[in-house]
């Protein structure tokens, strides 16, 4: 017997706890994934390379969102942790001959351990003070990258062996695309699941009200450290992929600039939101590229002011970010949920 319901009714807790609540959303998401896998056949190498950078940024942004957005501990050491992952993975592969598939998770675990060490101040420090402590992590690690030559090659950097799977070598944009997109999807799924189970909820509880979290039986220090560990694991993976993608890594890439860039991603995308990390990563990677296209077009059309426009590109970038913060301080994820709520009731506003 078939029954048509005049609404979206759930008959079991299992149904009610689904991430993808309706068949429509399920179809959308699965077709998006299929589209992602077909994408390299449809797009130019340049576009694919951009998506590769976005994919890595998504993993890194998820990482920093776990510690900053979900657990409420501002981390400014993101850039350096990326470096730890990249250098560690490269070292494991070069010196110990470990294949990438094992070296990448190992680098993730190693970065998690380093992240936990620098997360220890979180026992006593909160908010801005913790941010300064993580800033110290950034500078200490940057210094180590430059001076521990045997691991990092110093200022010259080191090459990063390409991942191999039997006869396939991942050394082109197309092949790396599949690697990056697969890992990124796994990272998104894992993070989504994490935040609907015990430990993820505990992270958010620590962020929202740490005193009552403790009263409810959450061991504060353990969860603060754990969030640093999980976050740094993600960042380590992102760093490894970055290394595999660029094939050559130098300390220059892992500076405070990168840390701030990632922080901006999650603030613009949405703190404490998995989707927000994706939006932020896409936005912050595409914006400079779009601006380059626009300014070069403007320079072509209006040669007299073209140079001027080129030189204020960075300024426009900053302006857009600030405008975003003023008009949408809760991030793109929040805006998206407002849009969804609007269309759900359309054309009746309530």
């Amino acid at each position, binding site marked *: 017997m078939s029954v048509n319901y005049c609404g979206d009714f759930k008959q079991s807790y299992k149904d009610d706890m689904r991430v993808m609540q309706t068949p429509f959303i399920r179809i959308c998401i699965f077709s998006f994934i299929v589209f992602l896998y077909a994408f390299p056949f449809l797009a130019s190498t340049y576009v694919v390379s951009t998506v590769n950078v976005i994919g890595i940024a998504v993993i890194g942004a998820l990482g920093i969102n776990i510690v900053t957005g979900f657990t409420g501990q501002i981390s400014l050491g993101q850039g350096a942790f990326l470096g730890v992952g990249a250098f560690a993975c490269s070292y494991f592969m070069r010196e110990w001959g470990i294949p990438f598939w094992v070296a990448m998770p190992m680098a993730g675990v190693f970065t998690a351990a380093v992240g936990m060490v620098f997360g220890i101040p979180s026992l006593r420090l909160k908010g801005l003070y913790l941010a300064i402590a993580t800033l110290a992590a950034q500078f200490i690690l940057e210094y180590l990258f430059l001076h521990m030559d045997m691991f990092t090659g110093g200022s010259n950097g080191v090459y990063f062996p390409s991942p191999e799977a039997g006869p396939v070598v991942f050394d082109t944009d197309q092949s790396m695309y599949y690697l990056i997109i697969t890992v990124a999807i796994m990272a998104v799924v894992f993070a989504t699941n994490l935040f609907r*189970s015990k*430990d993820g909820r505990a992270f958010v*509880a620590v962020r929202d009200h740490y005193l009552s*979290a403790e009263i*409810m039986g959450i061991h504060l220090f353990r969860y603060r450290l754990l969030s640093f560990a999980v976050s740094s694991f993600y960042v380590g993976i992102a760093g490894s992929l970055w290394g595999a993608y660029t094939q050559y890594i130098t300390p220059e890439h892992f500076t405070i600039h990168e840390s701030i860039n990632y922080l901006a991603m999650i603030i613009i995308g949405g703190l404490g939101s998995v989707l927000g990390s994706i939006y932020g990563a896409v936005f912050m990677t595409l914006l400079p590229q779009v601006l380059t296209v626009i300014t070069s077009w403007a320079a072509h059309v209006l040669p007299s002011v073209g140079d001027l426009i080129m030189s204020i590109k960075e300024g426009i970038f900053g302006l857009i970010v600030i405008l975003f913060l003023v008009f949408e301080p809760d991030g793109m994820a929040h805006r998206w949920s407002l849009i969804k709520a609007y269309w759900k009731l359309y054309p009746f506003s309530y």
Partner: protein
Amino acid sequence: MDRPAIQLAVEDLHLSFGGVNALMGVGFDVRQGEIFSIIGPNGAGKTSMLNCISGRYHPQKGKISFEGQEITSKPPAARAQIGISRTFQNIALFKGMTVLDNMLIGRHIHLKSGFLKGGIYLGPCQREEIEHRAFVEDIIDFLEIEHIRKKVVGTLAYGLQKRVELARALALDPKLILLDEPMAGMNLEETEDMVRYVLDINQEWGVTVILVEHDMGVVMDISDRVVVLDFGQKIGEGTPEEVQKDPAVIRAYLGDEESVFLGR
């Protein structure tokens, strides 16, 4: 008459912040299954007392034991493990989370799937989540908050937030629940509802209740026993009737004799 066993024993508790003595040699016993109220004027040390029991403050001197086990120096999280739960005077919910998630935090100590299982979710973790969701739904049903279960707590009205906080404390499945002014700031109807819930929690679920409350009508109506604090010292203890007749209590807390019990 057979008196139930002592569940929580507080002995000679001293707590001071610098030069301010919040508690000076307070001691009392709370028996299994009773509603035990702590009253006193503002600044008497009631909330400090609850904070000592729940582990947020550590007294300088004295002993607190729960079911025969000394807990004086245990951290708050460990006290939750052995079945002590509480609500706060100023709502201390997780404002960015939904009502359901807030309550599932209450289930935290009973959940076993760590972050690895949680990230994979399928299998044992999902089964566990569903099982605990069912437990939480019972409490939602009991406190009549079905309509807001998926709302973010920060958006709810004050009275509902108070109720959600009680729901979260109950989700822990406590043996002893500490309620810090659960009726504060509520209208008459909400107060009456809350009293009904407290009585049901106590009688149907068999949870011992320690209540701090300023609404004397409520305290005198539902308490089995009352302890009165003033300036960090215990000035009276006994059944509501005994406390009401105690001249020291009347002097310190309730003003002159005539206006005393004309409250609600």
